[in-house]
């Protein structure tokens, strides 16, 4: 067994999976064929449902000084992750637990350690090719930076277009470019492999009816994302490619490359991203006319239906249900027009300035080759095939998959699967946890408590770049004259290894204990500089960086005088900060290595097992006498698998696992403490237990089926819910041979005023039960009255099958619901047939109500744990996309129906994800904070608790005995909200004390 993992694909799924593994003690190699990380996500602008960016939210919360804490578009570092750009896997030997992976690493052509991202090479490069990152909306050079923000990744050569003219080599001031680099091979020993290679967007060019590439104003959704982005080719302005004018109207065409004969699956994310793009466009220009042409509006995720309603209501995005056959272009105006048959059978004629094609997700063609190398099976569409009821397992032991590599999905579901895959790997390799983690040994930090501040200022000229902007002599003189400065020096490239060695020498020689580097972006080089500080025994808190290059050179090329003034002020500020800075050391807290799982349904059982099988002790509390929760009432699954066998197997494993302590008929009545150190009191039918200490808590308390009171449910035996039908089909109680016709009504108790959310599973249930009925008796007439059929992902194929077998799907509107009456023995269902507008009257033998899922009463638990609930009564996670199983309160995690409605396989993935998030705490010896953190001056604290309410990390609470507030060091992220709100000056931020801030302000003015 090897405690290292190879993750293939550095998109958001691969990054998340790597971080989760790295955070729980495994060495990770994160490989990507591209020279840069970020995948598709780095191209996107902002995300639904909150219309914000938020990738950084997946970054580590503990030991945060060790890993990058900036935008992932810029780069990533973590002590346990080695990034392997430009790498493809060429061979895998060995087997699960002991793989040897052979990677071919393409030459970058640029030596990363020398490249200073000055862009001079790209400026002289004569080759221009369309930029992949900007989707061809502008050109790039043959030597290039893929993502304009990705500075720490450096430049790379595109060998396909490079003419090797050598202009860049000549121009490069640091001799970083090497055109003679050759492909390398690297062999890695790893215990497991995770495939997270994502998807490719569908290329709509073969769909000539839409005129993509022929009509300039027909663009893809990803091109549109680039236009929306401030870092994109239009700097965030929406412009028509034909005339660079802002459009007055935009059409979004759904299902381009999805839901066709050739690709009979739904790409799952396009409806929502089209909605978001329309809303973002409307935000930029409320006058804009936006219209989405769709077949079914699949807003099935948590909070998505509300977003849809908001797009319609608040933003006035229009929706029209029809598929557009062809797009024509007016040759004069380059406007686009089309005609289609609308839902009501009438003609839909429209003209738009811009048409956006919502392109779907297709598997990467590389999967064919990769599948062979990894020895994994692909499904018929070319995505990686997964095992029944195990969404991250491939056909090969030890090889796991997450994200869109196995099926099209959105960011939230990708991140859940990424954590779930990490969980499966952790289970497999748990015996090797921590074995391959290496930490650099630094000399002990000097005790400076008595020492007077002695500062050095190192000025980088960045070759000519900074030197051409500033009068370096004047700068040196200025720096020498500042208070407390004992040494000043200028260097051409401070980021280069030998320059840093010299710096270290000077620090020692002049007994310097405060350092200012006036150089470059802290994001690029902070890690290098911090390392240098630690090498000479100085805590990094005594270091300040000034970003000359970005804050002076890139911005003010024509204003040298002002640049000089600004440079002086920036240096003076940095010096004041560092001069008044106390040496800061890390604080840590101990961790209880046991978890509490609340709820013994599918989610709770899976989460408990996922932790116990990684070697952690688990206390599992179930309210009722029986394990299995709602799973007890499910007898089949649309995509296959036996839920009852699953349930029995889970219960058996839980009962037999010596690390799981099972408490049935037990409730949690009290919880106190914080991440790593909770104390919980359990109570069973007889007694209240002694408090137990746990490091993490998983909430898996489930949900309930909606109890209908509409559609004559209580008035006739022939009206039943899908679950009741399923039960009767499974038990054989229902005689299907007698049935003439069956009507199913969707969205009963879902997607209405009272419950404005989609229950996600009911459409699958209806399709599943329809197919099951048809299989037993093909003569039955089945009508499914629906609003939008939510057969996302590979469920679409079953929807097609059902239609092929004659199941009739009839759409209805929320404000014109079907009517059900009983006349004598007869059941009468009436609904409006949308194409004719006439009333469709059916007298079915059975009426099946597709009832949704409603939350349990979660209030008591939420109050006990200080957690929030959504407006619909489900638990509210920290962030719907990027922290889908975390809570704002650290150490508590969420899965199953307590989170939101979802299917069995999705619940399994989510439970594993929650377990893995918990494992990242339980697997640590101690929880370490960052250097910058908050403190309380008890003498001044009035105990008003304003800081407690302001702290976004729940890192503060009031000690009621002393009447003052206390900080939980490990949870504090050093944001300073407490300092801002505290009227008494009792909240203090190490590294940003009042004295420091006042000194800095003085330096500024």
């Amino acid at each position, binding site marked *: 067994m090897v405690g290292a993992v190879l993750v293939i694909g550095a998109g958001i799924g691969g990054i998340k999976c790597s971080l989760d593994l790295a955070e729980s003690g495994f060495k990770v190699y994160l490989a990507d064929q591209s020279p840069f990380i970020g995948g598709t996500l780095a191209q996107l602008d902002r995300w639904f449902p909150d219309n914000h960016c938020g990738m950084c939210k997946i970054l580590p919360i503990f030991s945060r000084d060790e890993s990058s804490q900036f935008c992932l578009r810029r780069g990533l570092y973590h002590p346990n992750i080695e990034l392997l750009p430009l790498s493809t896997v060429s061979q895998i030997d060995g087997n699960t637990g002991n793989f040897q992976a052979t990677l071919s690493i393409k030459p970058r052509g640029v030596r990363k350690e020398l490249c200073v991202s000055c862009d001079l090479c790209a400026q002289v490069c004569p080759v221009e090719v369309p930029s992949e990152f900007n989707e061809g909306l502008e050109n790039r050079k043959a030597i290039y930076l893929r993502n304009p923000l990705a500075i720490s990744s450096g430049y790379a050569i595109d060998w396909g277009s490079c003419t090797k003219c050598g202009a860049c080599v000549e121009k490069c001031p640091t001799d970083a470019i090497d055109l003679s680099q050759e492909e390398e091979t690297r062999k890695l020993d790893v215990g497991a492999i995770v495939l997270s290679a994502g998807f490719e967007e569908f290329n709509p060019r073969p769909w000539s009816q839409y005129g993509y590439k022929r009509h300039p104003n027909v663009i893809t959704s990803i091109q549109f994302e680039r236009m929306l982005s401030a870092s994109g080719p239009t700097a965030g302005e929406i412009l028509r490619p034909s005339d660079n004018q802002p459009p007055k109207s935009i059409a979004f065409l759904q299902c381009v490359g999805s839901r066709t004969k050739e690709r009979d699956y739904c790409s799952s994310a396009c409806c929502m991203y089209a909605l978001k793009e329309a809303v973002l466009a409307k935000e930029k220009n409320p006058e804009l006319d936006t219209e989405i042409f769709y077949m079914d509006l699949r807003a099935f995720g948590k909070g998505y239906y509300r977003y849809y309603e908001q797009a319609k209501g608040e933003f006035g995005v229009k929706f029209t249900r029809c598929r557009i056959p062809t797009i024509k272009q007016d040759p004069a105006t380059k406007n686009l027009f089309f005609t289609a048959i609308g839902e009501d059978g009438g003609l839909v004629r429209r003209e738009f300035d811009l048409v956006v094609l919502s392109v779907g997700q297709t598997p990467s063609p590389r999967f064919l080759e990769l599948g062979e190398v990894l020895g994994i099976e692909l499904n018929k569409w070319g995505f990686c095939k997964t095992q029944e009821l195990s969404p991250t397992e491939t056909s090969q032991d030890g090889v796991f998959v997450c994200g869109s590599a196995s099926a099209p999905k959105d960011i939230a579901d990708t991140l859940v699967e990424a954590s779930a895959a990490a969980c499966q790997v952790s289970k497999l390799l748990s015996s090797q946890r921590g074995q391959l983690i290496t930490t650099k040994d630094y000399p002990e930090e000097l005790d400076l408590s008595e020492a007077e501040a002695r500062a050095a200022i190192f000025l980088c000229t960045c070759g000519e770049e900074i030197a051409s902007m500033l009068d370096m002599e004047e700068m040196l003189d200025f720096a020498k004259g500042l208070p407390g400065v004992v040494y000043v020096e200028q260097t051409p490239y401070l980021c280069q290894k030998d320059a840093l060695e010299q710096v270290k020498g000077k620090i020692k020689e002049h007994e310097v204990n405060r350092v200012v580097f006036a150089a470059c972006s802290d994001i690029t080089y902070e890690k290098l500089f911090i390392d240098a500080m630690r090498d000479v025994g100085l805590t990094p808190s005594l270091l300040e960086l000034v970003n000359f290059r970005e804050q002076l050179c890139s911005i003010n090329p024509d204003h040298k005088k002002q640049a000089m003034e600004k440079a002086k002020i920036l240096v003076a500020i940095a010096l004041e900060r560092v001069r008044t800075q106390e040496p800061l050391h890390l604080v840590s807290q101990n961790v209880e290595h046991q978890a509490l799982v609340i709820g013994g349904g599918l989610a709770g059982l899976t989460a408990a097992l996922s932790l116990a099988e990684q070697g952690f002790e688990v206390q599992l509390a179930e309210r009722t006498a029986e394990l299995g929760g709602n799973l007890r009432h499910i007898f089949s699954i649309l995509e296959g698998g036996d839920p009852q066998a699953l349930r029995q197997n889970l219960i058996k494993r839980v009962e037999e696992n010596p690390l799981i302590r099972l408490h049935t008929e037990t409730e949690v009545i009290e919880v106190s403490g914080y991440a790593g150190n909770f104390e919980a009191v359990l109570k069973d039918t007889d007694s209240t237990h002694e408090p137990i200490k746990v490091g993490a808590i998983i909430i898996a308390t489930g949900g309930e089926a909606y109890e209908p009171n509409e559609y004559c449910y209580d008035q006739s035996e022939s009206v039943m819910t899908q679950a009741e039908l399923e039960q009767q089909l499974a038990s054989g109680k229902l005689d299907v041979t007698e049935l003439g016709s069956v009507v199913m009504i969707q969205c009963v108790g879902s997607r209405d005023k009272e419950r404005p959310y989609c229950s996600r599973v009911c459409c699958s249930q209806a399709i599943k039960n329809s197919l099951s009925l048809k299989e037993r008796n093909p003569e039955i007439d089945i009508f499914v009255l629906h609003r939008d059929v939510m057969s996302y992902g590979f469920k679409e194929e079953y929807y097609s099958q059902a239609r092929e077998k004659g199941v009739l799907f009839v759409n209805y509107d929320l404000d014109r619901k079907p009517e059900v009456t009983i006349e004598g023995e007869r059941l009468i269902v009436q609904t409006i047939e949308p194409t004719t507008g006439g009333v469709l009257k059916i007298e079915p033998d059975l009426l099946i109500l597709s009832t949704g899922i409603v939350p349990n009463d979660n209030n008591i638990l939420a109050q006990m744990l200080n957690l929030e609930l959504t407006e619909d009564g489900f638990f509210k996670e920290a962030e719907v996309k990027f922290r889908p199983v975390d809570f704002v309160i650290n150490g508590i995690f969420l899965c199953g129906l307590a989170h939101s409605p979802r299917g069995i396989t999705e619940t399994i993935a989510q439970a594993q994800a929650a377990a893995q998030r918990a494992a990242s705490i339980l697997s640590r010896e101690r929880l370490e904070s960052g250097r910058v953190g908050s403190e309380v001056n008890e003498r*001044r604290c009035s*105990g*008003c608790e304003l800081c407690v309410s*302001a702290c976004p990390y729940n890192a503060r609470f009031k000690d009621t005995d002393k*009447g003052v507030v206390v900080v939980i060091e490990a949870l504090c992220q050093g944001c300073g909200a407490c300092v801002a709100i505290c*009227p*008494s000056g009792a909240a203090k931020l190490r590294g940003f004390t009042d004295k420091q801030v006042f000194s800095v302000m*003085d330096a500024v003015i």
Partner: protein
Amino acid sequence: MTRSAILEVQNGNLIETLNNLWRQLLEKGLVDALLIPQELPSGINVVQTLVSDVQKLESPNPLSPVMPVNTARIVSQMTKVTPSPKKVGVVLRSCELRALIELVKLKQASLENIVLIGIDCFGTYSVKDYKNLAQDGSSPKDAFIKAVREGKEDPSLRQVCQMCEYPIPMNADITIGLIGIDFEKSILIQASSTEGEAILEALELTDSPEAEVTKRDEAIAKLIEQRTKKRDEILEQTQKDISGIDNLMRTLAPCINCHNCRDVCPLCFCKECFFDSPTFEMESEKYLGWSERKGTIRMPTHTLLFHLTRMSHMVTSCVGCGMCYEACPNEVPVANIFRLVGLNTQKIFDYVPGRSLEDELPVTTYQERELLGVPEKL
């Protein structure tokens, strides 16, 4: 639901009738102690007293039109460290009660075992004016009550009172209703909590006719309208006086950094003010540095910063009691400034200080789409 009862005024003597009421509260054990203003024998002022022995209830008079302290401060002092172990009745004007509610939200006071007795407020004189009136030999309280009955507005009342649009107490267990009532004959006692109803029960008061309540409500509405109009007039002038940095500096010019305004403010609850902290103990080279850079600096420093900081800390909770202005030795119109800024700030958050314990303090809540209506330049 509010229950309204009638308390007959004996012999047309309102003060004595009320005194009887206070005595009954103690005698019947409805409260163990009473925090109530009593008149000094000299008649020139009143002081707050915490009375446990009914015999010591010598000259209670919460109707005296003078307010030497915002009583919320005293309740905070009594209940912050530990809640009151015994039942204490606290007699408060509206602005005092509102400040107390804010302090409870700020965890600086506890209402446990506290019975809130609110009184309708017609306004108060400054301590100095009250003293002068009393020294004239007249009885300012009697004259005041007479004037109120005749419906006269006394222009020498404190300005903050003339523009106070909250003349009746909010959130009291018991309210002593005077506005719109012929209080030579009877007054209205209203209970708005179970605690309050129990007291009405024990006092064996009879329910008031609906007409009395309606009459009072109408009178209140009229008074509020009148005061709101006055408020807008006064604050319009204040707005002019402080618009722009020059005007603001001119208005603050008489400030001598005594920080009295802070010391008497019921919402300035810090144990140790930031401005008394070592952060402001600067080395001499700092002062000289500033002086060298600008040629000259005003000493002592940080006058404007002090007022702005205090404002940013408490203005969303400012109840406009005007104690700050009373304490200012140089008549800097701090109360009007804080009232103006408070009103505008509170409006943004639809927040009324003291309205309800349920309303969360604006600084403690965050809504993504808040502050959208605030123009970038005010």
